[in-house]
């Protein structure tokens, strides 16, 4: 039997669609257009709904007109009902319908026979749906060999046509290895094709260990989206990994667009590059016959077709559009952006203490130490091993005294043990996922036999969240945060190491909700952390499985990678892909989870990880210890320096996460996002931007003595942050490297705030002064932002307690201006130094404070590098001020 039932659909080849739109069934309300589609082969009718959504989006929904029973529609992913905008039919004939989408002459053309949709702008086709005739919709039916079939076959003539659809093996029951899927609903899969004329580059649909630019899947497996606990995953492979975000982004020099396929069942995506084959169908649309085209085909095992087409046109617009649907990145507490030290496992309290001291002895900063599964009593989460961690509060207090924090793992498989409170409560409340026969579903995982709480049940989630209360979770304290692993969910003895598809979540099959399970686990956990602090503290929860919308609940990592150079390299496109679809807080296990890294690989990974959003070292239990000081003094120094660079840049990371939280713009960006017209950037995945102002080119090759970095932007300049050397944009540049650092460039025209007084944890640096790095652009000006709040509560949102300032330099004047006049926050931080790259030597520098007082600033000028350093302006970071150079 085939790996996946869904792939049967792949046998369907492009051609004339059997579907026909019944234009006489058209219904149009203010914001909703609906009409029926009929499959001329079997006469089954579908209902098509079209919505125009605020912010230049179109939603296309297709369901059975009269399904035997409801089909699953994904809840809880959209923030709310998307706001709709008026639709109007501007033209209609016997075979087509033209709907105005408003805006820039955008229209949607619906062709009746064969059914297809084309979204056009002016004379240009932006996207076509079902133009290849691959719309397929396996309607719910009754099994022929049952009595109920005979009864329901009287329903109508459509059943006659069903005879064509002879039952095929696998339709009603499938076997994968030794596992049998009972498939009580029979085949239910859906499929639809999208054509993107003029597009050669598509991205997104994580999670795959593959290139940033998605590959053509002709002749290989499609990209698969099915959350799985994959053991030692392979690189450059479209196989499914731990998480799934069914969002594809297309980009060309003309336009950036997105397709959000809202379906939580097993999903496959085929991508092929073609040239446009339009023309005759749409006479009034001009298409160059030479144009490249990308065809995308989505297939899902169950549910309905519910697609959001995000029309851009710019990358930032697509991010905004997607954020308006599924929300933005949660704003983490500052410390979560600092360095995390993890290992499976820190053995006991003494070990934790020793490692903590090790960081101080070697003067290496860190904020979080992590405890993996061995910390719990027999893998009973929410408990502590009584011999290894007898006094968890003592341990947590010890860390708190150092202003540090801890993460403990809480996985969603619950040991079946009548002596375990969590299990007993879940069982008595009937909160477990059920097997197909109605009993509690049980599978093997770390604790042995385990039950799986039904996180799709809101009551269950509420109960789960309540378990994080300090009086419930014994031994926990406010500096303890949570890690959700194995939430695909991982079932060691299940098909493909996950849950049986016919397991039941209330009335829905696991098949319908699979990719959503991990999101719910993280959501319920994050809710728990918020509630335990009575809504005051921002949570921090790391998850391995995820779905569209997971960005709202915390951080994600790329799972169980390996200590290999290829894995270091792939961490860049993997996190870039996640960032494009909303999940900014991404990282890979520094050093690699499986296997033992060489000192060189470890150092290079620290240097790369220091410039990725989630910065955590982790290691498998069978690997030798690898705390940063175990590789000799030279490597210790190199790792210390990498981590210190991260800490110095925390103000910038923090501001970018604030920005991501407010606007949905990714933190870690492919170059093309900021240089959308520069074709040379479209496939780059060995370097990237942090925000728009830092360009990072990690060293990911063993023994590398140099890298070739592409600096984008015609007429722009870039400054090497280590040497202050200036380089022109729009060129590939060979940069020699030593082991001491990786190439990082600051964009000319930007101002970046750093805290150069690196201390042992980010909390220790809260009140420290800032140094402003002003990199002048070719026009002699620069801009940047500074964001400050209390770094860990919701006050920034609920009480507007924050500082957000615009820093700008032009005409030899640097000033700080309030971007949020209605906000309030007082900070002890001040401006200790200003470093200006690319300027000239002034004769004087005058600081004008808000109260009008003026004072002269001392400065130094390095004429060889053209670096001007202003000594100690001393102004408060929240104040208005101006510095004039003469």
């Amino acid at each position, binding site marked *: 039997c085939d790996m996946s039932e869904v792939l049967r659909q792949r046998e369907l080849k492009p051609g004339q669609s059997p579907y026909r739109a019944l234009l006489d069934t058209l219904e149009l309300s203010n914001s909703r257009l609906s009409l029926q589609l009929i499959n001329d082969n079997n006469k089954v009718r579908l209902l098509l709904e079209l919505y125009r959504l605020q912010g230049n989006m179109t939603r296309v929904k297709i369901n059975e007109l009269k399904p035997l029973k409801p089909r699953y529609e994904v809840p809880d992913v959209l923030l709310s009902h998307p706001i709709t905008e008026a639709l109007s039919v501007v033209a209609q004939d016997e075979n087509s319908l033209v709907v105005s989408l408003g805006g820039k002459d955008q229209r949607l053309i619906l062709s009746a026979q064969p059914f297809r949709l084309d979204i056009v702008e002016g004379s240009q086709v932006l996207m076509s749906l079902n133009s290849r005739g691959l719309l397929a919709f396996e309607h719910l039916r009754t099994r022929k060999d049952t009595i109920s079939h005979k009864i329901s076959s009287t329903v109508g003539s459509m059943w006659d046509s069903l005879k064509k659809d002879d039952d095929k093996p696998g339709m009603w029951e499938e076997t994968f290895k030794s596992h049998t899927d009972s498939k009580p609903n029979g085949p239910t899969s859906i499929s639809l094709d999208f054509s993107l004329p003029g597009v050669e580059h598509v991205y997104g649909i994580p999670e795959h260990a593959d290139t940033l630019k998605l590959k053509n899947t002709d002749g290989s497996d499609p990209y698969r989206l099915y959350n799985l606990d994959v053991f030692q995953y392979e690189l450059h492979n479209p196989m499914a990994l731990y998480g799934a975000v069914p969002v594809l982004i297309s980009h060309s020099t003309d336009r950036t667009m997105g397709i959000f396929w809202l379906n939580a069942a097993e999903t496959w995506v085929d991508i092929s590059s073609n040239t446009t084959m339009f023309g005759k169908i749409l006479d009034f649309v001009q298409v160059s016959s030479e144009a490249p085209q990308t065809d995308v085909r989505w297939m899902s095992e169950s549910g309905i077709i519910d697609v959001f087409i995000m029309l851009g046109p710019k990358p930032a617009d697509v991010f905004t559009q997607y954020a308006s649907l599924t929300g933005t990145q949660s704003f983490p507490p500052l410390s979560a952006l600092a360095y995390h030290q993890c290992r499976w496992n820190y*053995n006991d309290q003494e070990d934790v203490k020793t490692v903590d001291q090790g960081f101080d002895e070697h003067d290496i900063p860190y904020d979080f130490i992590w405890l993996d599964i061995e910390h719990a009593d027999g893998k009973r989460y929410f408990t502590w091993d009584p011999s290894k961690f007898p006094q968890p509060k003592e341990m947590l207090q010890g860390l708190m005294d150092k202003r540090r924090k801890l993460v403990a793992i809480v996985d969603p498989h619950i040991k079946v043990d009548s002596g375990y409170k969590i299990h007993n409560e879940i069982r008595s409340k009937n909160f477990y996922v059920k097997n197909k026969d109605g009993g509690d579903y049980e599978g093997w995982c770390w604790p042995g036999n385990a039950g799986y709480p039904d996180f799709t049940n809101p009551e269950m989630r509420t109960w789960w969240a309540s378990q994080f209360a300090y009086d419930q979770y014994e031994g926990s304290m406010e500096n303890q945060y949570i890690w959700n692993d194995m939430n695909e969910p991982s079932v060691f003895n299940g098909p493909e190491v996950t849950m049986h598809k016919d397991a039941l979540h209330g009335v829905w099959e696991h098949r319908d909700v699979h990719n959503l399970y991990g999101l719910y686990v993280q959501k319920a956990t994050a809710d728990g952390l918020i509630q335990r602090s009575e809504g005051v503290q921002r949570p921090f929860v790391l998850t391995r499985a995820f779905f569209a919308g997971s960005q709202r609940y915390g951080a994600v990592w790329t799972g169980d990678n390996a200590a290999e150079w290829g894995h270091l390299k792939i961490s860049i496109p993997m996190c870039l892909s996640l960032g494009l679809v909303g999940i900014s807080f991404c990282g890979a296990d520094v050093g690699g989870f499986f296997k033992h890294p060489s000192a060189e690989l470890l150092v290079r990974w620290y240097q790369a990880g220091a410039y990725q959003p989630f910065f955590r070292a982790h290691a498998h239990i069978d690997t030798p210890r690898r705390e940063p000081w175990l590789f000799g003094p030279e490597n210790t120094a190199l790792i210390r320096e990498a981590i210190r660079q991260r800490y110095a840049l925390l103000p910038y990371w923090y501001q970018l996460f604030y920005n991501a939280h407010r606007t949905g713009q990714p933190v870690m960006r492919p170059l093309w996002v900021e240089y959308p017209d520069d074709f040379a950037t479209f496939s780059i995945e060995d370097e990237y931007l942090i925000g728009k102002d830092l360009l990072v080119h990690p060293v990911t090759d063993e023994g590398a003595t140099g890298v070739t970095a592409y600096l984008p932007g015609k007429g722009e300049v870039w400054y090497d942050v280590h040497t202050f050397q200036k380089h022109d944009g729009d060129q590939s540049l060979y940069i020699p490297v030593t082991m001491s650092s990786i190439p990082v460039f600051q964009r000319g025209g930007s101002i970046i705030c750093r805290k150069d007084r690196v201390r042992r944890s980010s909390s220790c640096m809260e009140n420290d002064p800032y140094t402003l790095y002003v990199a002048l652009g070719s026009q002699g000006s620069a801009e940047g932002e500074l964001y400050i709040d209390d770094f860990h509560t919701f006050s920034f949102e609920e009480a507007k307690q924050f500082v957000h300032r615009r820093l700008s330099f032009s005409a030899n004047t640097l000033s700080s201006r309030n971007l949020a006049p209605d906000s309030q926050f007082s900070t002890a931080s001040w401006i200790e130094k200003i470093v200006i790259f690319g300027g000239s030597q002034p004769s004087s520098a005058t600081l004008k404070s808000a109260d009008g007082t003026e004072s002269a600033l001392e400065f130094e000028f390095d004429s060889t590098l053209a670096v001007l350093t202003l000594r100690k302006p001393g102004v408060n970071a929240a104040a208005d001020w101006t510095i004039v150079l003469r």
Partner: protein
Amino acid sequence: MTCLHLLLTLVFAVSLGTPVEIQRPRGVPLTKKQFYEESKPFTCLDGSRTIPFDRVNDDYCDCKDGSDEPGTAACPNGSFHCTNAGYRPMFIPSSRINDGICDCCDTTDEYNSGAKCENTCKELGRKEREVLQKMAEITKEGFLLKQQLIEEAKKGQQEKQSKVTDMQENKKQLDEKVEALRTVKETAEQPEKEAKERHLKAWEEQKAAIRLEKDKAKMAETFLELDDNADGFVSVSELQSHAELDPDADGTLTEIEAQGLMGGAEQVDTSTFESVWPKIKDKYHSESQAEEPAPVETPPDEVKEPVVDNDSEPYPEDDISEEEDEDDEDEDDYHEDDDKAQPTIKTPEKTHEDEEAMPPYDADTQALIDAAQKARDDFEEAEKALREMDDQIRNIEKELSFDFGPDAEFTYLYSQCYELTTSEYIYRLCPFNRVSQKPKYGGSETNLGTWGSWSGPENNKYLLMKYEQGTGCWQGPNRSTTVKLTCGKETVVTSTSEPSRCEYLMEFTTPAVCQEPANIDPSPHDHVEL
């Protein structure tokens, strides 16, 4: 704005109960006081630049070496000195100044962070003195013990050395003795062999005569049996009554065939029967025991079975070792048991010879045999003694070859074992041999490494022992153990841990590593405070 104009601070050094004011900038150690003079511009300690003195500790880093900010966190590479009166002075990185964490016991590092620090120097000092004192006592006593150990070891070593010398001398004599006895033995064995052969030959001849006699008797008996009519002749028909004599095995003995057996004669008398008898004696069934069942073909079975077993055994064994490691050993045990059990159960019964046993040796032969046996015993005994002596010499030489430390102070650990019981396991350290771990509540022992080498730091390699190549770990390396030696009066394993998968760490106290106490000051109370 936070400008900290905390240029100069008064530092009170409590010494001998009299407070003395020593004025110097915050964070500067006394030894560097002279570089910070308020009246003069300050020159960075690396000489890189000179700045006005009011820029010392002004919370802005002017010197590359951080020397202008000894009391603030402004310089990334600076360090802060805390006096810690009552305890030990120390330097901390500048980044720990005002970071909200109390690092200096005199609280001077947190002068502006709001951290509530308590001066704990006195308490720490007291504790440290206690610890030091205890340590000193331990070291002192340990060192004394060590001297004894050294002495004993040296004595032991000398004894062993001289023992080896003695033994080697003895061995030479033994060698000679063995050779002499070998000659005696060989000399005695020659006549023994000849006498035995003679005896055997005589016995063989006697046996042949007896056998002939018996055959004749049987022949006569048979003749009487065959001669049914007792006419003194065995006729063809009389012979035909014994179908078993049928030469072509077709079940009937025809007249012609019977005649053939009888050499063409119609009948034979007793003397002619002598020529017929050899042709029929093997097949002939005595009428008196005719109904007795013929012996079945059991012997081949008995022989075959163990052979089959031996042949087939390697295959299942191989399969098991490939598939299931865990069960392998158990299965092996079963097989071994079978092997041992089978021979005892299935040993074929000895076929009884009808003939009587060989008669005892005559007195002369027996005397020769006894003499040879004695020579053999004497020789073997001597040879065994020689082997034992060889073993002893080898063992002592092996022991003498170990590196038992510069003064042989670790000698006493040789061939000893030390145990530590934790909640789950019993750990066992046998120095210079191996480390092992055994579950407390049953289960087999795991080898955590066999003696590898001393592996302490270059200046004292005798602080660490490395045991390597223990039992392999699943998906991992072979287990290994590092034993950390610290000075103690007693020789004990104090703790074990597994800091990294399959890499064990054992803490072990022994007087053998106690260093000579730096005995300068009899009262350690005063110099600590300085």
